[in-house]
């Protein structure tokens, strides 16, 4: 049986997660409980959702640095609107998702129409969104709406007293949606084509402008959704929240086995990237004596390992192709 070399990064990601979990279990048996599994999903729900959007962007060879600021903006937007108006949270959520999608679409349009690097346009977007959050409030605003409290307390108690929360389930659904969109739709095929090279994509008849706008709109939508989840998670909106989350999301995508230059990768790998990062964090809390900065150090090492792995695979596939 031969395995497609393109699957290696994905298998490596899943392998690292399973081996990592086994090591944690050997040292702290309490880590293999539904509580810890439930916590992994709940605590990383916002990151997982935003990383799905980031995966699609990176698959197309782009980058979206605005998402962390968009999450903070979303939390503040929800908190302030619920405090100052009588709108129902569902209406506020809908408004927010339209707003963040449009924001993403506008960035996508700029990137395409002005042929600007995504890095610069989304960097501007990052400052814009963070600034807008500060315009709304400079304090942390509590969300006390009964509907949000209901959402916060919505969970299914698993055997072993672990909680599978609504936001954890939402994250898994976002991953499923991401998988279907990236791997089963025409839009997804166009994303991979652009990631493989714009010139080739054009020859294949991909509408690059439309696809680029949709890619960043999707990332904006996911950032908005992640903002809703983060607001439910913390029960407040805070303009200083989620600083640097865009970089954590990019790291999750790369550890998830997606090629940073675009064109190759799997959305489901990103889920394992996110869970692996959560696992490291949990391990460090369980240990209780390690400095929590080790989380960053281990993530740094994993990133380096994956970049080297990808370089190696590129060489390997090039060699294979030449032989065939």
């Amino acid at each position, binding site marked *: 049986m031969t395995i497609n070399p393109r699957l290696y990064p994905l298998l490596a990601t899943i392998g690292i997660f399973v081996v990592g979990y086994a090591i944690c279990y050997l040292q702290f048996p309490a880590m293999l*409980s539904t509580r810890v599994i439930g916590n992994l999903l709940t605590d990383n729900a916002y990151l997982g959702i935003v990383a799905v959007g980031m995966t699609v962007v990176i698959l197309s060879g782009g980058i979206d640095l605005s998402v962390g600021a968009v999450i903070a903006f979303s939390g503040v937007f929800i908190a302030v609107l619920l405090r100052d108006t009588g709108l129902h949270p569902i209406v506020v959520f809908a408004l927010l998702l339209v707003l963040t999608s449009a924001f993403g679409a506008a960035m996508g349009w700029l990137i395409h129409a002005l042929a600007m690097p995504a890095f610069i346009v989304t960097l501007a977007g990052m400052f814009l969104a963070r600034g807008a959050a500060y315009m709304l409030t400079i304090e*942390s605003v509590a969300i006390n709406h009964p509907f949000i409290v209901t959402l916060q307390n919505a969970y299914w108690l698993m055997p*072993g007293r672990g909680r599978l929360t609504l936001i954890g389930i939402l994250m898994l659904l976002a991953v499923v949606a991401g998988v279907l969109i990236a791997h089963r739709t025409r839009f997804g095929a166009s994303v991979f084509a652009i990631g493989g090279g714009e010139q080739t994509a054009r020859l294949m008849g991909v509408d690059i402008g439309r696809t680029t706008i949709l890619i960043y709109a999707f990332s904006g939508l996911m950032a908005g959704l992640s903002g809703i989840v983060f607001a439910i998670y913390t*029960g407040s909106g805070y303009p200083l929240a989620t600083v640097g989350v865009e970089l954590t999301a990019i790291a999750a995508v790369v550890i998830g086995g997606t090629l940073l230059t675009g064109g190759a990768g799997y959305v489901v790998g990103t889920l394992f990237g996110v869970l692996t990062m959560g696992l490291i964090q949990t391990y460090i809390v369980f240990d*209780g004596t390690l400095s929590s900065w080790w989380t960053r150090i281990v993530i740094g090492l994993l990133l380096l390992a994956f970049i080297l792995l990808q370089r190696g695979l590129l060489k390997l596939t090039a060699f294979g192709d030449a032989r065939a």
Partner: protein
Amino acid sequence: MMKTLLTGAALLALTATASAQTVGFSQIGSESGWRAAETTLTRQQAEERGYTLQFSDAQQRQENQIAAIRSFIAQDVDAILLAPVVATGWDSVLQEAKEAEIPVVLLDRQVDSSDDLYLTAVGSDLVHEGRVAGEWLVGDVGDADCRIVELQGTTGSSPAIDRANGFREAIEGHANLEIVRSQTGDFTRSGGKQVMESFLQAEGGGAEICALYAHNDDMAIGAIQAIKEAGLRPGEDIRVVSIDAVPDIFQAMAAGEANATVELTPNMAGPAFDALEAFWADGTMPEKFIQTDSRLYTQADDPAGEYEARKDLGY
């Protein structure tokens, strides 16, 4: 795979038993010398009493603190100490701890959740600290006009809000004292220095500033640097009053560069552990707020001696 996970979890639920006292401590970070001392003293207190301390540094992020508390609950610790980074957003995780019957003690900062979600809070009265600082300045200035600049703490945090309010209460009714500029220096030395530089530029090179009120000593120390670089004498041309009483501010006071500081004791864990021991022994419920002292130190209180007494506390 999933099946093994679930079987393992079920087994674990059966075998989980209580062991020696384990306390989880979710600390905000190490943004100031005071906080580093709080961490050291908490470790020392835990060691003296024979507890196992699970320490987690949240790097200033609430999401890290929530995740750490959830992990503590999953470990079935006997108590959780929490120094919350912001006041809002703790309801659901505190509720989870309550349902797991794990007492939570808040250290140093408050949350806006209902007070039946935690055992007690240990802290100083932050408004009172601001008031003590303000009262000192009112007395020191006398009848002269005084334009005050204020370095605020992290936006939205309870010490920033309360220390600002307490100070304003103290100077209210004294028309000769006026806060002319107020900005956040984020509780850091570099923040204090940068913001003070802009204050000095905006206020005619600093000649029109009579006093600086900083929400913590670290920002004051950064600001003292900025005042010196602007060619003025801190402590004489511009009065410097701040809060926390870290060793370095005593050094500055000994050198005549700072005027007064209000002590915020870093030993919050001592009273917290006392309350927990009473609770573990026979379920004694402590008061919902255990207040620590807020003592004022000035240049007359032997700052050099105070520095010697504190420098090895781990600041």
